[in-house]
């Protein structure tokens, strides 16, 4: 690989990261959702964009509400069956983000759904 190519790639990556950061700052003032990715703007949202959107859009999972254990199951399935790489120390950050923004909390509860009794 030539140094020119390396510079080229680093330039593109850096430009995107700066753009994403700028977008997040701009959007945060008006709306909590990033228009380009459809993701809730919160800590580590760019990590989710980077690692999850290469293969699929966010529409499929931002409509879902899961607890942390089930979000972790999704990541495992993506790794075992769909070619997602090991996330290392990024994984807890992504799980924090998913749990906080797409978690199964009272405020996220869809009141149209009748809950099972369980007890």
């Amino acid at each position, binding site marked *: 690989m030539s140094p020119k190519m390396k510079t080229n790639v680093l330039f593109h990556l850096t430009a995107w990261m700066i753009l994403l950061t700028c977008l997040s700052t701009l959007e945060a003032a008006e709306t909590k959702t990033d228009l380009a990715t459809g993701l809730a703007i919160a800590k580590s949202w760019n990590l989710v964009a*980077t690692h999850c959107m290469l293969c699929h*859009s966010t529409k499929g999972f931002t409509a879902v509400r899961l607890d942390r254990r089930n979000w972790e199951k999704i990541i495992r399935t993506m790794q075992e069956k769909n070619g997602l790489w090991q996330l290392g120390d990024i994984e807890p950050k992504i799980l924090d983000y998913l749990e906080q923004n797409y978690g199964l909390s009272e405020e996220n509860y869809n009141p149209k759904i009748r809950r099972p009794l*369980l007890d």
Partner: protein
Amino acid sequence: MNPRESKSPIPDGYSRRSFVKAMSTALGANIVFANWMPQGLVPVLLAQSPEPFSIPSKPGLTILNDRPLNAETAAHLLNDPITPASRLFVRNNGLPPVTPDPNTWKLTIAGESVVKSKTYTLKDLKTKFKHIDLALTLECGGNGRAEFYPPASGNQWTIGAVGCPVWNGVRLKDVLEDCGIKKDAVYVAYHSADRHLSQDPTKDAISRGVPITKALEKESMIAWGMNGEPLPSHHGFPLRMVCGGWPGSTSGKWVKQIDIRNIVHDGTKMSGGSYQVPMFPVKAGATVPAEAMKIIESMPVKSLITYPKSGAEISTKDSLKINGHAWAGDLSVSSVSLSIDFGQTWIKTALKKPINRLAWQQWSAKIKFPKKGYYEVWARAIDSEGTSQPMLIPGWNPKGYLNNSCHRIAVYVA
């Protein structure tokens, strides 16, 4: 590869390892990448159009996902007895082939239990075998998933992942028998031309099928047309399987190969809980071991109110004309009833016979409302074996399949 021909935003010759290192640096975090990584990995792919997305050939459909493309139809848009292509839901697991050529398209019949493997062109299929046209109900196994609690991952289908177009093609049975079926045949499975979302060429987006008994039914088809037109690209152009009454995923699109297997097919999305439900009722939210799951076969009895649209207004002087469809997987529907008092009393509707086996059936009624106010009309179908739709959501299952609870609409009487 010639660099000028490369469509990847990563310059050729740029090694994966150094790219990963660059990504890690850019992200300010240590990434422990492993295994396979897609070509073209660059944040350009992160961009998702902020414009509301729609499918030009399918105005009015609700988009649930744009990569992969998944869209459902509102109940009131499904009023036609035969679903037009423009109103049929779209379910994709992967990336459809971009420009399939019907002139060079080939279908191979193979597998452990085929006597003689053969390959057919579209022309071969059209000239060699008897043509059939059948209205077959196709419903996504996950239709109604949005109502389960705790929620299940996947497309949050509400009510409209169902339709019943007329399919044009040949019997799957005729083609399989032309090749010969060995006595040990168990399952018939498809392989398709759609690509896995990761673009890994070694992975199938989906590869499912049906037991040999279902495959040999006279309604199981290899179809090249829908409603007299070539299959639309969203629905498997130029060739697909259609197994009416079973989860839509058994009806493979863009089919290239059909295997007669001597085992239960073990392709992508045949295991791991995909299109499977627990063998026995489980507590909502439970973790169910793989050995306690079974493959979904025939879909359960269900109905839709397709006219009027929910929120209709009517005067006490008038009768409300109301109609819809009902279907019951491999079975037929024996009755459809309506309730305007939250299930306390039921009014029987006029129910038509299906146009052919495995087609949905039309029901209709006229209702007088006793006084002014807000009403809900509930519809409940009963299948030919006496099994009814439940009023409320049926048994919870990990992936949110088979919600056949009653459909309801709001009616204001003034």
